């Protein structure tokens, strides 16, 4: 059974950092695991960061981090500060989703009854519900353009054009934003997302105990 938890210990955060580095190296977002230009550890260790882990027993197969906006800004401010300023001046509470990495297939040589999409969906769901608990109004994403369709299907809208993102080996990036109030409102009114996996993402209710370690 997949367990989702918020990383609180040094060991848990180091495990998350190691997983992200491994996946990012494989996907070309980092040159090597020792090349921490992405400042992965910096973001996961921020006091404003909430890092969610997906585990089965001792195996860590997925992680995602939400950084709450603060005077230090968000990771994506490096290239999208102007785009975010419009929302900040509008009094919205922002947070950015980053360090999203899933490698569930390594688990028991694929013997787990769970799969990468299931873990991805669970992590995104937990981070969305965490954002709602933290009164975040707009959840931001810096994404690779090849993933735009997925984020649009989640209900995100593009707020920034394509730029080179130095934090991920200068890969191309787009800025997307999810208006949480609008998406929750439309779901409450019965307007459901188009796809079953996306419906499940919003439908999924994390265990109440998951939020115990969430400091608002």
């Amino acid at each position, binding site marked *: 059974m997949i367990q989702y938890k918020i990383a609180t210990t040094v060991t848990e955060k180091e495990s998350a950092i190691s997983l992200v580095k491994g996946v990012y190296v494989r996907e070309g977002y980092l040159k090597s695991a020792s090349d921490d230009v992405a400042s992965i550890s910096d973001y996961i260790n921020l006091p404003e960061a909430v890092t969610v882990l997906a585990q089965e027993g001792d195996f860590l197969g997925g992680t995602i981090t939400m950084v709450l906006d603060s005077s230090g800004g968000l990771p994506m401010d490096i290239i999208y500060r102007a785009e975010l300023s419009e929302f900040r001046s509008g009094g919205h509470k922002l947070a950015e989703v980053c360090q999203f990495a899933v490698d569930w297939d390594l688990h028991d040589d694929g013997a787990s009854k769970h*799969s990468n999409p299931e873990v991805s969906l669970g992590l995104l769901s937990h981070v969305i519900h965490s954002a709602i608990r933290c009164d975040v109004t707009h959840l931001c994403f810096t994404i690779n353009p090849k993933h735009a369709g997925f984020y649009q299907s989640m209900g995100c809208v593009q707020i920034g054009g394509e730029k080179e993102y130095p934090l991920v080996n200068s890969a191309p990036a787009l800025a997307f934003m999810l208006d949480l109030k609008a998406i929750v409102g439309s779901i409450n009114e019965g307007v459901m997302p*188009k796809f079953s996996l996306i419906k499940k993402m919003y439908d999924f209710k994390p265990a109440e105990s998951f939020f115990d370690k969430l400091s608002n």
Partner: protein
Amino acid sequence: MKSYDEIVSEVKELIALKFNFPLEEIQPSSNISTLAKDSIQLFELLLSFEQYYQMEAAYEDVVQMHTVEDVTKYLAKNKYGVTQ
């Protein structure tokens, strides 16, 4: 009505297009998770099947699709009522 073989071809073509992967290298036993370059791409593929076939697949079924054959069998049975 489509035949099982036609559905196999369609599924393989969709995967090749989505993942920019050589069609001839996609086999029924190919693991879609391995063909995808990352987990979001795999997620997108599953959404594209729903879109292409204009059907809503049950979440529990979708997350259990591991191979090209799993996808084909599911679509053949649930969209067209055909078996291999």
